[in-house]
């Protein structure tokens, strides 16, 4: 899962340590909420992750279908039309090997089960935080 090897130090602002990604990771944020999209993108970029963002599951599927690859994809649960789990299912069917993080405004166990069954690796409640991002970045580098 993911693409790069090599060591990584990190920009862990909450712990005050130095952290910079030597091998660039890439991420895609899929969220129909403007402020959520901006914040998640900014957080990932602050850790040196090259991040793009789209508003819909359909846009994500198109991007993957066009050949784009990402180490990490963060997908909102309740997207309009093509919801989060269905989006994850479709890109897994297309062969995407990204780490997929499902994210929700309100944690619900059924949503978690649905998302994981669709191919997500983890499922968390907003907000996306350094406590979540840093271990993921370390795992992707390993």
């Amino acid at each position: 899962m993911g693409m790069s090897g090599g060591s990584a130090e990190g920009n862990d602002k909450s712990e005050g340590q130095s952290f910079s990604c030597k091998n660039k990771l890439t991420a895609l944020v899929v969220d129909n909420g403007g402020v959520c999209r901006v914040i998640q993108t900014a957080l990932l970029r602050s850790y040196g992750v090259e991040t793009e963002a789209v508003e819909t599951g359909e846009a994500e599927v198109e991007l993957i279908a066009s050949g784009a690859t990402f180490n990490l994809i963060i997908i909102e649960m309740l997207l309009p039309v093509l919801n989060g789990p269905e989006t994850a299912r479709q890109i897994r069917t297309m062969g995407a090997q990204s780490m997929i993080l499902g994210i929700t405004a309100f944690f619900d166990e059924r949503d978690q089960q649905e998302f994981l069954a669709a191919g997500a690796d983890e499922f968390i409640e907003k907000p996306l935080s350094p406590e979540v991002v840093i271990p993921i970045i370390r795992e992707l580098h390993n």
Partner: protein
Amino acid sequence: MERSPLLRQVAHQRQTLFDEGLLDEQFVRLEELQDRTNPNFVEEIVTTYYQDTSRLILNIEQELERRPLDFGRLDGYMYQFNGSSTSFGAKKVKAECSLFREYCRAGNGEGCMRTFQQLKREYATLKRKLEAYFQLARQARLTQTASPPG
């Protein structure tokens, strides 16, 4: 270097937003994302937050006028509202979002309407106080630029 009275006022006003429970630690994380390459990040987030949520408020208001109430749609709008408010750090607004959703799930229209009114009050209070805070912060920056130390 001793802080100017204006800077102390800015710091005090900022702290009040947390002490009054309007903002939580998520807002601090947003402030930590602001740097030289993105010096207006927090204000831009505030603008985006109010753009996103003002649209949702309008949608919810329209839904609350329909009969019978569509609790599914209301729940959906409030889900989005909560996601934005949580990511922004709007603590009291977030609490009202959760309460609203509970009333939706219970099919309690009166509860929804009452909670929505309270949500709008908290939302407006936060907006007013953030605007005042940023205005003061801008004033402080201008004063510092005009009177460099030395």
